[in-house]
């Protein structure tokens, strides 16, 4: 990696000085790489850190939210904690891996710690009718609704059920699935985030998908 030195100017444009060639270049904040922004954060530049937050907030919030079963307030709190940790660790950051991989490793640690503290994802009782027969959750209100309302409710319920089933998975399987399914990360990066090997990540994903396939069996047919 080329060694660079950054300085922020008043109009949020940055001077990038290549230490090797002594070449000076002007770049807008958006074009500065994550590693350089981290280096600037370590030197106490809050603008650089704010830019990092802006860039990766959806990735972090999305991952946390899916890991915590879609709880928005709780997810925001954990996502904020993750960025605070990133800020604290800025001086120790070594740009030898992709920044997002490093960020998601912190994300994993924070989420796992949070889940251990909470330990509250208990399986909900299955829906039952008056006779105590287990029913499809969507059957309850479907009969009275038509058209868009029915479709909207179906989608909402389906999302809730999917989130709940993902939240039921063991932590490592859940993280692997979220990163693969929703962040389209490759196996190597997931392995790095989870401190595991590629075969074990594949195994985690296989088991997660098997569990979900069984749990969502009725929905797989319902959405045909």
């Amino acid at each position, binding site marked *: 990696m080329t060694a660079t030195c950054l300085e922020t100017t008043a109009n949020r444009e940055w001077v990038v000085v290549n230490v090797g060639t002594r070449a000076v270049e002007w770049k807008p904040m958006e074009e500065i790489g994550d590693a350089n922004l981290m280096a600037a954060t370590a030197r106490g530049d809050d603008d650089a850190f704010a830019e990092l937050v802006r860039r990766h907030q959806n990735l972090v919030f999305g991952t946390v939210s899916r890991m915590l079963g879609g709880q928005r307030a709780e997810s925001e709190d954990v996502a904020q904690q993750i960025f605070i940790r990133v800020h604290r660790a800025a001086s120790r950051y070594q740009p030898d891996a992709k920044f997002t991989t490093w960020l998601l490793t912190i994300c994993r640690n924070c989420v796992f710690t949070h889940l251990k503290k909470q330990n509250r994802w208990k399986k909900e009782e299955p829906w039952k009718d008056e006779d105590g027969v287990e029913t499809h959750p969507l059957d309850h209100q479907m009969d009275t609704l038509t058209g868009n309302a029915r479709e909207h409710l179906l*989608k909402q319920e389906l999302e809730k059920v999917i989130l709940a089933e993902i939240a039921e998975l063991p932590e490592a399987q859940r993280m692997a699935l979220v990163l693969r399914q929703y962040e389209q990360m490759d196996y190597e990066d997931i392995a790095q985030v989870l401190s595991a090997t590629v075969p074990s990540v594949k*195994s985690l994903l296989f088991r997660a998908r098997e569990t*979900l396939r069984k749990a969502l069996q009725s*929905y797989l047919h319902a959405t045909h």
Partner: protein
Amino acid sequence: MEDREDPELNRLLGQLKSPQAPLGFERRVMARLREEREQSVWPKLRRWGATQTLGPRIGFTTACAALVFTVGVSVLFQWKEKQKTERLVAALDAFEQYQQDQEKWPELDLYTWQ
């Protein structure tokens, strides 16, 4: 166990909305960061130091100098103690040697013999 993509399951899981960070998230992170900075102990100590009469003089450098001085004095004392012990051990060894020689050659007055 190899991971195999299942299009049917993928389609179902794909129905989950992509959660976006709430509005003002970045602003709240920065506010929390400032709050954490304010709550950290060292700036508090500095502020406390600045309000005291000797405040401006009790700075970080002074604290470091005091620490170095204390460690230095402690090392010096330990070194002196070690020297004292070594001298004592040497004297005891010499006395032991004298006693052994006395036993070997009792007819000689080794103490005064040169």
